[in-house]
């Protein structure tokens, strides 16, 4: 009896909201096409999850701090291109190229923070603008052409495995654990929650609100740029629009995972489940031979529904007593 109520309590937590839909989707897809359960396919799902989760984890922190970022996909595109350019055109060794790319990520994060934090402008629309600027820059500087011709050792990151597990999955797991610990156990994590929960209160409690928001913004852009490196490595070529459009699915994953768009609350595990759900759906659409034209429609609907759920969740907790 007590166990049962514990179970109920666990599943009523907002971050567990994605569990039931995942189970439902898995059952439906598995019934239509049993190939879903093939090890190869499950690995594909996990791999797809890892790419979006690498960005979703820091984005969760940003949402908790009350921010938002539509420029992540553009920074991912930029990251791949910069890394490819550094290796193929400048002839830099791989570690140096990666460092240059991460530095570009830091710069993107600082520019974004300068706009939304320092000038305190609305993040949603400003990062949309930034997305266009960065994507435009990527296209102008490459003429829209992919960059190729990397050394074989560059492939390890995106294609290599350790004991049968893709490196990106291992990296995503480690990153997730670190960010989870940061969010729940450190002073900085507590400051993120306070700033997103109530900026005025946080400021009066002696927290440097702008500094906290800036660091979280930079973290998101750096990891988005890093994800770009992983993608370039995976496809052995840096493509200008490889991540275009993913910002919406990643944001949906975070919100489905129980993180509020209004700031103050959210969990990394929830975002992981959100990423997994969208990866399962995406994979299922292919396996069930649904036309890829349906994808946009379905993902758009999921985004809208997840935000509606977020609203009701907040209202419910608001009238909780």
């Amino acid at each position: 009896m007590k166990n049962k109520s514990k179970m109920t309590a666990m599943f009523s937590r907002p971050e567990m909201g994605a569990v039931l839909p995942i189970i439902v989707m898995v059952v439906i897809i598995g019934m239509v096409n049993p190939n879903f359960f093939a090890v190869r396919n499950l690995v594909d799902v996990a791999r797809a999850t890892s790419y979006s989760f690498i960005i979703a984890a820091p984005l969760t922190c940003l949402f908790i701090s009350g921010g938002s970022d539509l420029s992540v996909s553009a920074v991912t595109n930029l990251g791949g291109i910069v890394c490819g350019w550094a290796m193929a055109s400048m002839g830099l060794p791989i570690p140096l190229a990666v460092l240059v790319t991460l530095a570009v990520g830091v710069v993107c994060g600082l520019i974004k923070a300068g706009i939304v934090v320092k000038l305190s402008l609305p993040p949603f629309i400003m990062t949309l603008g930034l997305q266009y600027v960065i994507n435009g820059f990527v296209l102008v500087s490459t003429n829209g052409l992919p960059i190729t011709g990397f050394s074989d050792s560059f492939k390890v990151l995106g294609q290599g495995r350790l004991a049968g597990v893709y490196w990106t999955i291992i990296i995503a797991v480690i990153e997730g654990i670190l960010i989870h610990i940061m969010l729940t156990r450190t002073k900085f994590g507590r400051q993120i929650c306070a700033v997103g929960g109530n900026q005025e209160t946080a400021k009066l409690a002696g927290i440097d609100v702008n500094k906290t928001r800036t660091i979280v913004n930079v973290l998101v852009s750096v990891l988005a740029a890093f994800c770009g490196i992983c993608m370039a490595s995976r496809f052995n070529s840096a493509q200008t629009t490889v991540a275009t459009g993913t910002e919406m699915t990643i944001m949906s994953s975070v919100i489905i995972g129980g993180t509020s768009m209004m700031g103050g609350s959210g969990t990394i595990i929830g975002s992981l489940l959100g990423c997994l759900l969208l990866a399962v759906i995406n994979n299922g659409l292919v396996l069930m031979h649904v036309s890829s034209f349906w994808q946009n429609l379905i993902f758009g609907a999921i985004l809208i529904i997840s935000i509606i759920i977020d609203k009701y969740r907040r209202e419910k907790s608001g009238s909780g007593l």
Partner: protein
Amino acid sequence: MNETVLEMRHVTKRFPGVIALDDVNLDLRKGEILGICGENGAGKSTLMKVLSGSFASREYEGEIVIDGKPQTFDNVAMAQSSGIEMVYQEMNMMLDSSVAENLFVGNLPGRRGWVDYKTLYANTRELLKQAGLDLDPGELVRPLNSGQMQMLSLMRAVAKKPRILVLDEPTTALTDSEVEILMKLLGQLRDSGVSCIYISHKLEEIYKLCDRVLVLRDGHTISCYDIDKVVEATLIEEMVGRKVENLYPKTSHVCEEEVLRVEHLSVPHPNIRGKYIVEDISFSLKKGEILGIGGLVGAGRSESLGAVFGQYTNHVKKEVYIEGQKVEINSPKDAIANGIGFVTEERKRNGIIWMLSIRENVAVASLDKITSGMFIDGKKEEEQVKELSDKLRIKAPNLETKLIQLSGGNQQKVILAKWLLNNPKILFMDEPTKGIDVGTKADFYQLMSDLTKQGVSIVMVSSDMPELISMSDRCLVISNGRITAELEKEQINEINVMRAAIAE
């Protein structure tokens, strides 16, 4: 002249837990100006909200009678169609529209959806001339100063040719010469047969302008006088006179040593250039003392505390000495490092974080204290928060309870606990018991008394007269950004405070 245009009969308005208006009666005659005065929270604004239709008629009891006919107003438009216009303290201007559009919003002249700008501008010029405003009808409103905007919002109401005009503290943003124009204008309106209700703290204005005056206190109608038959002292007495219940376990623990001295504190107005909310005030605080700060809402009391605490820094001038040492406070962080805590007035806006737990809320201002190395010491945090929560008797299922689920009084205790966790030497408390129930209030007063016994010093801003009188060891009264009285314990009484609070 004696014909009654408006009567409000037996109006009672309840909010959850509070009766804001209790059987209030009012009558207004044709072509007169009726002043309404009373303390903060006496019910003046609520009464006018009833009249303006801001509350639907089923939300209150009582009757509104216009020209002898009972009316029911369910929204503002219904009240307006009966000829009632309000001019509020906050000016709801469309900042990026022209002066003319603002004045005639809702009834622009024209035909078939087209605006007749020629007529509009001509009508506007006439109104502007009446108001003594040297503005162009096509000018945008945004760059205007707040005095001009206040005059515009008055003219917007006048443009609708109301029969009953209600003004709520219309002169707070006006300069002396603008006040003159306003007075003249209201005089003209009265002569043309318009009836006015004029709400003000400033008795001087009431005497100059009004024909009769109505006093409200704690939601009751206290009295109504012809203005030439009542002296100022009587009005003040009636505004404040009420029984003081004994819920104040105050004992004095004032020591000789000075813990805080603030000199030459000036805080500029955030919107009006060249105007100061607080102008060159100085005060000091002794160890174990409760320094009360009285005055009317908007006199600059909260801003003074916020400026010392580092909440406002823009163009603030101040010198702060703590235990005789000059200190620089440029942010709340500096203030906290110097042992100051700040229980703010609006707990929803800048006191609590509603979606976080009691534990997280209490710890938020003392994260350094519970952090060892990189990580928060969960056990230490739990112990220290638990100890405070027990001491303050915070009522909640456990420390993980979210703040939104607590009552206002318990939320307020959480805010106090947040600052006590830091072991402050000095506590700023802005309206510490606003909106909390009597039982919790008594707890709060006991805690404040205990704190001063332990050597903590408190600066308390309060609009609650009995609280201010009973809890303060010494009391400053601020009016219009200046200190108008410093009262020793035995001098602190309602009359002295009120007199200083309305002093110019």
